[in-house]
């Protein structure tokens, strides 16, 4: 293109807004022995920082680089396998 434009578009990529995990006050911790592998935390996480690893002992893995500590995963966990602890 011969001209450059100021456009209201962006190209999303991981970490483009910095490591937002440092915003966190409390941190979700997973007790894997209580986890029943329902996937509710994965479904509800608004930041998509929860990964499910099929066939692993640690079924739920949280990416703390970007988890902002909102606590929704802990709220929806039916067995209270995720609890919020101080950083």
């Amino acid at each position: 293109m011969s001209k450059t434009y100021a456009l209201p578009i962006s190209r999303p990529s991981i970490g483009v807004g910095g490591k937002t995990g440092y915003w966190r006050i409390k941190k979700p911790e997973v007790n894997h022995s209580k986890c029943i592998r329902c996937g509710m935390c994965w479904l509800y996480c608004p930041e998509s920082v929860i990964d499910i690893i099929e066939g692993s002992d640690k079924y739920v893995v949280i990416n703390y680089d970007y988890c902002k500590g909102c606590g929704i995963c802990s709220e929806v966990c039916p067995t209270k396998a995720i609890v919020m602890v101080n950083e």
Partner: protein
Amino acid sequence: MVIKVLTGNYAVAEAVRLSNVDLITAYPITPQTTIVERLSEYVDLGVIKSRFVRVESEFSALAVAYGAALCNARVFTATSSHGLLYMHEMLWWVAGSRIPIVMAVVTRSIGPPWNIWNEHSDFMDQRDCGWLMAFAENNQEVLDTTIQLFRITEDERVYLPGMLGLDGFLLSHTSEPVDVPEEHIVKSFLKPRSQPYSMCGTELITLGNLPKAEDHMMMRYDIQVSMENAKKVIKEVDLEYSKLTGRSYGGLVECYRCSDSSYLVVGMGGWVGTMKDVCDELRDLGYKVGVLKIRFFRPFPEEDIIEVLRSVKGVLVFDRSISYGSLGHIHAEVLARSYRLGNRPVVKGIIAGLAGVDVGVKEFMNSIVGFVNEVEERGYVEKYSEWLLPG
């Protein structure tokens, strides 16, 4: 060359038929309805291969057009009056996203009270959104300008949406002979669809995210720069179109007998035809009057107007709309430009023809003669802004 007898609305539909549009969407509203009615018939009969999307409101009409256009579709929509006002927010989205779309606006007054007759308030209400705004004088110009707008909006120096205004009923429902260009001519004139980015390509893009204030301001500035660029593009396109069809409208303004005039009458839309007739009569009577037609209100033809105003004593601007508490929209614009001249002409504004009140030869004649005589006698006018009230 094919001459067809067409209403203004059918002239729009013919232009869209020729312009290889991918998608048409609209919500019916008087006096625009017959444009999309005709287009829906074309789609139904397979005359054009466009998709026709029925929606539940004008807001949705432009939102659907916007969505499709973001994915590289050439789209068309049309509306009037309250429908246009309902679209208002989407107008900003489309222009701010720099997405070319062409829309016909068949002008009509705004309620209350309920009224379906013509005035330009609905059109003028959209002047700050970042859309190109053209206005046609007759049904031939309606057809030609609609085709031209596809080309202008998709020019990489512009990349802004554009609307074409035509007077409700006076043009929209009045039949005139219209020269409809051959398909291959329009095809060679319009290039393939072009826009600054597509949301449906391979690249992942998000639109309208929260930017830094500095970036946001630069986006605003870029629209203004493109508006300025559009002036050149409009003139180029007019010239190229005239080579193909033999019809030129002069770009952003059309000057009628104004090269040697001492007084100018300025107007926009269908009644400019009447102004030209009055001008001819006044010339026969010895009045050196010319007519300046505003073809594009956005971008505003600043340089053209300054140039024409340089050599006249008085300018009489007729507005079919008013910004309440201020002046007629065109009057205010012309007045601002006249300030740039060292030797300024008298610039008077007349508000007329609101709510569909008829303005004919007699009304123009009285206003213009009165103005010219007053300026000749005194060198100024008593009232710089006046309403031509009915009765």
